[in-house]
């Protein structure tokens, strides 16, 4: 299940949506807004999505994870619009019979999401400046297609 929302992400609901009687483990990743970026104080973030394509890419990532690991259920939720410090911008939850697969699939999903899903973060700094984040490229490599 994939979702893009401008509301606060309900972590408890995400957990419940992947809980099944067959699954023994759930791994959940929550990306939260940090109060600093490149050593500068961040006031808040805003996320913009190419929503129809982002949903399509998130669905494809879920399919790819399912083809690689015996997942029970998976959910990928990304928030858009303003996200305050400490709030969740992304939640990924994966359930499976054994924990190893849940961890691996969850890690795969967040890593790939950050590489290919067309969503952009705009940083509103405490000093009043505003920048589109180039964090991913600067720190971890270049964008690749699936």
């Amino acid at each position, binding site marked *: 299940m994939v979702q893009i929302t401008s509301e606060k992400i309900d972590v408890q609901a995400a957990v419940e949506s992947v809980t099944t009687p067959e699954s023994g483990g759930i791994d959940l990743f929550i990306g939260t807004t940090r109060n600093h970026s490149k050593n500068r104080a961040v006031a808040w973030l805003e996320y913009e999505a*190419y929503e129809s*394509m982002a949903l399509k890419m998130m669905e494809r990532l879920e399919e790819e994870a399912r083809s690689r690991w015996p997942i029970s259920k998976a959910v990928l939720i*990304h928030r858009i619009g303003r996200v305050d410090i400490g709030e969740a911008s992304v939640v990924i939850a994966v359930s499976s019979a054994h924990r190893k697969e849940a961890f691996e699939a969850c890690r795969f999903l967040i890593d790939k999401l950050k590489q290919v*899903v067309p969503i*952009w973060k705009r940083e509103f700094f405490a000093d009043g400046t505003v920048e*589109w984040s180039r964090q*991913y490229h600067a720190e971890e490599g*270049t*964008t690749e*297609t699936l």
Partner: protein
Amino acid sequence: MKVTMRLFSIAKDLAGFDAREIELPEGARAADVFVVLNAVSTSFEDWRPSLMLAVNREYVSSEHPLKNGDEVAVIPPVSGG
């Protein structure tokens, strides 16, 4: 042919708009949207190496052939998560 060009993030800021219907000659390729964009802002020249293209919500190469009615999106480096 007519295609819809969509711009996001920094590309939208450089152009000053987020979507536009554009007219391209028959046989046009995805990267031909930059002919239009370079006329809007010279900054697209600098940004070109980091801008990807998507046609109808799929990443494509610069050489991807366009057809009438396509949605061509200019995708700056993504930074979700």
